[in-house]
């Protein structure tokens, strides 16, 4: 199942333009705020001085204007004058005119804006001015006092008014700068970067011939040149690699072909040691062989030899599979035939013992391993049935391969000895001892020898082993069926069970029925 690699998005975590703009915006706002605050302080001070000068001037002029009315004690004129002044100057909160010798004010006026008596003194500017009268003889006489309370709120408003254009220009400049920067950044950097990203994605798709124009001499141009050089290098290396891979693939294919030719030929050789199907027809009423090498050649083999009074059937499962297993089958087959020739078929247990010894001797697996090569430990499982139809007897001896006997009563398993053959033992005292099992033959019996490749095959929905019970279930109804059909059904069941899973080991099942003399 092909897995798709996640595609790298072009925009990841926001664009460069947005980040640069945000950084510039933040920096400009911070600097702008500091500048505005500083300007506000300076302008505020200037406006405060302006207000102070204005208040002094107003107080001086009004004091001069009020000198006559105060001298005349013309309360109406004084009141009218300060009312007019209060109306004209919005910054004035209160005015009071005192006659020189009277504690109570001659006239006073307060702005409607100051509902409180006079508000916070911190926000006020109090100006006091003596009212002088120049008499006819040139003397100057102080006839009263003028008090004007100014609100400094005007200072803040005037400061804001003065700063408003500055802030506006600052914002406009900021927006213009961001706009110009954005356009410039997009044209100079982002567009080439997008082009580079597209080319990188094209390269990721395998299009190594894509290039970017690199006429510019700045960093982007250098980056484009570097990218083009990298693309050229990648393209050259890819072509080189593809060429090499192709060459190696062709070489490997040739080698593989040679190997497979060799293995196929080995398979022919291995097949030659297996008895031809028709060689079994004489002594057996029926037989069926399920022989499934995991690879081309198998680590399993079976044997069927005619003897003087019957025949010998053997099934072997050698160490490994494939070529190593095939080598072992050739060795074990030779050893088995040699042992049968040497000891005769009557004592299968002795044959097993002989094969055990011969394999160990041949493979130098006697005693403790002394070299690296000797550390490999190889052997085989082997089951031998010596069938004597005339005596209605079957002698069975086995190293780890059971004999399944199927009758109308069910499936009986005759287990062999639990020792394998040929594996390294430290001394002769540890040599295996095998036993023969005599089984009387009668009609209706079916015998099956199977290597563990069949029961150990995994499959099903959970990947579990095929198992002995499933094999028994398949064979229990085989009594009335031809063994070819039983084999076909078993193959079908096995294929369904595997459900496309790979074969784990070589599988061999040898089933036979003995033709008994009438």
């Amino acid at each position, binding site marked *: 199942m092909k897995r798709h690699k996640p595609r790298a998005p072009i925009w990841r975590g926001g664009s460069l333009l947005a980040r640069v703009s945000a950084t510039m915006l933040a920096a400009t706002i911070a600097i702008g705020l500091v500048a505005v605050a500083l300007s506000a302080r300076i302008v505020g001070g200037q406006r405060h001085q302006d207000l102070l000068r204005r208040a002094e001037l107003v107080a001086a002029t009004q004091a001069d204007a009020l000198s006559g*009315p105060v001298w005349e*004690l013309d309360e*109406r004129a004084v009141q009218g004058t300060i009312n007019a002044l209060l109306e004209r100057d919005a910054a004035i909160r209160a005015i009071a005119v005192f006659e020189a010798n009277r504690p109570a004010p001659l006239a006073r006026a307060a702005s409607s804006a100051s509902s409180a008596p006079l508000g916070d003194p911190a926000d006020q500017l109090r100006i006091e001015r003596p009212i002088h009268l120049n008499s006819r003889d040139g003397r100057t006489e102080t006839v009263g006092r003028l008090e004007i309370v100014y609100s400094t709120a005007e200072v803040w408003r005037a400061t804001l008014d003065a700063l408003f254009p500055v802030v506006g220009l600052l914002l406009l400049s900021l927006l213009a700068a961001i706009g110009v920067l954005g356009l410039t950044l997009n044209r100079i950097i982002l567009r080439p970067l997008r082009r580079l990203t597209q080319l990188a994605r094209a390269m990721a798709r395998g299009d190594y011939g894509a290039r970017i124009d690199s006429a510019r001499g700045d960093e982007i141009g250098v980056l484009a040149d570097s990218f083009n050089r990298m693309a050229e290098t990648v393209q050259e290396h890819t072509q080189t690699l593809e060429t090499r891979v192709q060459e190696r693939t062709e070489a490997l294919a040739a080698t593989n072909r040679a190997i497979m030719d060799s293995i196929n030929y080995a398979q022919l050789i291995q097949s030659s040691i297996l008895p031809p199907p028709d060689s079994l027809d004489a002594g057996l009423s029926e037989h069926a062989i399920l022989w499934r090498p995991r690879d081309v050649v198998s680590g399993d083999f079976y044997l069927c030899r005619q003897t003087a009074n019957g025949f010998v059937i053997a099934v072997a499962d050698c160490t490994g599979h494939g070529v190593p297993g095939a080598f072992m089958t050739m060795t074990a087959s030779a050893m088995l035939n040699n042992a049968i020739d040497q000891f005769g078929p009557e004592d299968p247990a002795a044959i097993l013992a002989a094969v055990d010894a011969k394999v160990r001797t041949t493979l130098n697996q006697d005693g403790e391993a002394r070299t690296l090569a000797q550390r490999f430990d190889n052997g085989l499982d082997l089951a031998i049935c010596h069938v004597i139809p005339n005596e209605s007897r079957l002698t069975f001896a086995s190293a780890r391969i059971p004999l399944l006997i199927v009758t109308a009563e069910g499936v009986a398993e005759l287990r062999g000895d639990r020792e394998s053959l040929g594996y390294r033992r430290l001394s002769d005292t540890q040599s295996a001892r095998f036993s023969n099992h005599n089984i009387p033959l009668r009609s209706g019996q079916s015998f099956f020898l199977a290597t563990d490749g069949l029961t150990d095959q995994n499959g099903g929905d959970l990947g579990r082993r095929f198992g002995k019970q499933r094999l028994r279930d398949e064979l229990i109804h085989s009594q009335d069926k031809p063994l070819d059909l039983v084999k076909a059904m078993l193959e079908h069941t096995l294929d369904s069970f595997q459900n496309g899973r790979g074969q784990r080991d070589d599988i061999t099942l040898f089933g036979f029925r003995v033709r008994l003399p009438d």
Partner: protein
Amino acid sequence: MTGRSTRPTALSTAWSLFLLMIVGITGGSSAFAATTIKVGAYEFPPYVSDTGPGVTQSFLDLLNANQDEFRFEPVATSPQRRYEDLEQGRFDAIAFESLAWGWEKRPVDATRVFLRDAEVFVAKAGPGVDQSFFNTLDGKTILGRLGYHYAFADFNADPKYLESQHRMRVTVTHEGNVRNVVAGRAALAIVTRSFLNRFLKSDPELARKLLVSERTDQIYEHTILVRRGAPVSTAWLNGLLDRLDAAGKLDALWNDSGIATR
């Protein structure tokens, strides 16, 4: 022994007489120094005027010239503040005044009347404007002087009263009032007749544009008001006035000032 004892006694007596003579001379000279009498003076042409010398100054000079006991000096005040100024001792007396002008309940005494003057109305001359114009003041706007007491207003000088009850507007300038009447800004102005005579004499063109009422609002009976407790008394002043009157010096002053009524 007697002679020896008498001689020091005679010397002592002579020395004592010398000292007494010195003290007498010193004390005598301080007793003859003129006491300053501060005389309040407010804008009241032609007696006190901001535009030129007033009759009051000439009158005080006349008083000073005809006696050595007191030295009369003018002190500026205003019509509204003259009462407090006098009560607070900023001046001791005020000339060309009348008890009817708000002094009734104040601690002052008045001399005899030494001059009579009058207040008259002026209106803008024009066709159909004659003396009958002054028969009634109802519905006519009148310009007057702040702090002055007018007879047609029952000598009430409150500007609010004058404005609300008599359609009167008080200012601080007599000349301005006259010119405003000519300019048509008010129907009437009420001014001191002696001032008006001098003013129109100096500006004949203006005089032709005005009609002066034969009706007088009040006849001034000028006295000198003296603060009770002041160094000078009304009796002393009356005596001085009598002497000046008898010598014809007062009439001479009024004639010289252009305010003679006889």
